[in-house]
């Protein structure tokens, strides 16, 4: 027999290193004469879509199709430090550095463009990689032509920016400081489960998520991160367990150390809350780690809803469920 349960959990997560750590990212952007925009960042994409996000930010600021943007680096031999891909920080930190570098370059485009058209700044329009003089219908020059002209003058359409926000170490007694972290991400999840009381096995049916993302720079990636992060959290809730015997791990392999298979993945329905309320690029917040955190408490609450028993250890294995049911009956 199966018993249904529904549980909810809300989390908050301060991201970036914070607490006074000198956390920062540097990025560089250059418009070349051969129709490319080089974006130099040492940030590592470990599958989360970091590069896509950086390209989108640069393209948005520079008002050009993202296909012109070429990433250089992912390596501190070729680009300056972008910090680690950890602590849910890259979109916020490197994203801000890329945005600032792109804004610097945009300023140079307006500066050199104004000189080229011999006009004043507000009388220019920039669109799709081209600069138009508003008072001259035929007045048009591409980024690449402008880059060539600037090169002749011994300069480059190139800029570097560093994003280096200040945070403060918390007070030892109160745990508080003026700013522990650069921003906080919030998420609420409701998880529906069914507990098979014959076998103790829990099946996760549905996951409903509301994620405060600030601004979803790539909504599909955000949905992907919600699903991937949550499934990892469900593994922690229900399966992942290091088993030791006399100090030796007896399940050091993926046959016996279990994570969810594709068949174990529930249905997802997610809502993105975009209040643009952080100092991140376009108001974006980090969402990498936060998407993992609510699964365990939400599942534990759902178990309580289903069978009326509070489980206080992880993972919630079939054995634990059956033993708890037995204890409860006695």
């Amino acid at each position: 027999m199966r018993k249904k349960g529904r549980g909810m959990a809300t989390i908050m997560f301060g991201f970036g290193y914070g607490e006074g750590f000198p956390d920062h990212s540097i990025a560089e952007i250059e418009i070349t004469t051969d129709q490319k925009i080089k974006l130099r960042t040492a940030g590592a994409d470990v599958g989360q879509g970091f590069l896509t996000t950086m390209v989108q930010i640069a393209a948005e600021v520079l008002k050009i199709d993202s296909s012109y943007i070429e990433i250089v680096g992912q390596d501190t031999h070729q680009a300056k430090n972008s910090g680690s891909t950890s602590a849910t920080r890259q979109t916020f930190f490197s994203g801000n550095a890329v945005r600032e570098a792109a804004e610097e370059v945009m300023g140079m485009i307006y500066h050199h463009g104004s000189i080229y058209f011999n006009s004043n700044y507000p009388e220019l329009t920039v669109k799709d990689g081209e600069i138009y003089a508003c008072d001259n219908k035929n007045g048009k020059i591409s980024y690449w032509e402008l880059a060539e002209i600037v090169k002749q003058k011994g300069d480059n359409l190139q800029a570097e920016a560093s994003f280096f926000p200040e945070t403060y170490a918390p007070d030892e007694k109160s745990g508080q400081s003026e700013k522990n972290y650069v921003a906080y991400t919030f998420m609420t999840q409701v998880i529906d489960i069914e507990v098979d009381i014959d076998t103790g096995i829990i099946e996760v049916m549905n996951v409903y998520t509301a994620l405060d993302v600030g601004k979803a720079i790539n909504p599909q990636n955000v949905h992907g991160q919600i699903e991937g992060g949550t499934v990892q959290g469900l593994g922690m809730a229900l399966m992942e367990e290091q088993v030791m015997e006399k100090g030796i791990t007896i399940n050091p392999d993926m046959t016996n150390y279990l994570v969810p298979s594709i068949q174990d993945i529930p249905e997802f329905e997610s809502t993105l809350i975009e209040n643009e309320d952080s100092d991140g690029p376009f108001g974006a917040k980090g969402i990498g780690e936060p998407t993992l955190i609510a699964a365990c408490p939400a599942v534990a609450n759902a178990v309580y809803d289903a069978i009326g028993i509070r489980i206080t250890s992880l993972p919630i294995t079939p054995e634990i469920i059956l033993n708890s049911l037995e204890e409860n009956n006695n």
Partner: protein
Amino acid sequence: MKKQSKGVKDRPRISGKDFNQYKYFRPKSKKELIRIINGFQEDLTIIAGGTDLLVANYQKLYEIKNWLDLNLLDELKNIKMFDDKVEIGSMVTHQRLSKLDQIKELFPVLHQAAADVGSPQIRSRGTIGGNIVTSSPAGDLLPPLLIYDAKLKIISGEGSRVVDANEFFTGPKKNILKKGEILEKIIIPLKEDIYKGAWIKVGKRKALIISSISLALNLSMDRSNLIKKARICIGSAAPVPLRIKTAEQAILKEELTKINIEEVAQIVSEKISPIDDIRGTAKYRRQVALNITRKALSEVMNQ
């Protein structure tokens, strides 16, 4: 040039030349197979689908010296239908068993168990013969074969013999096969009875999982709707796939709706001899054996 990663130089160097002194046999016919078995005196490692063998020998495959590969033996890949029996070649994959309508119709429990094995990749490689010969107590096809009274035809240089599947397994990963013997086919008798069956696999996730415990049930009814023959077999809860004969006896000649489910479930739970391992404790398995026996019997009552 690709850079060598750290530590590579410490690994044993292996090249094709190292294996010149060893043999890799790949017979194309039963005749050729027998000739190889008769003519070759050293130890042979037999490979069918490789889903157990390659995992068990991960990173030390080179330790296996002489190979006998059954994959080109088309004669072992046949499924033959007769009036009174079905013959399944030992090289038939789980995938075929799980896709064939005839298997689904005649042996629904075997069909379902084959579909529950591993993943599409494993089902496509792994064979029914490999599942039997590996003889893991957790082999998912074994309880279904036992409840259908399957017989196994074994061939060797000296001839052949047919044994009951129920007599084949002697312990965890142990069976009665002798050196030079090959499992050729599985023979499942067909009766005109009405069958009612159930298959329950309990594992910690929905796919790619070794069973914590499994149950196969088959009841055949006579014309007056009394239980004529009962088979209950539990996997992963004893050194071998275990038929619970006391429980089978207890419901014989009973009317299906009047079975004492509690009594049968208690017998099953008591007769198994589970151990504590990574897939479950002995206590858990006894409890679940009780629960899934109840569940399986209720299921067949409603069929």
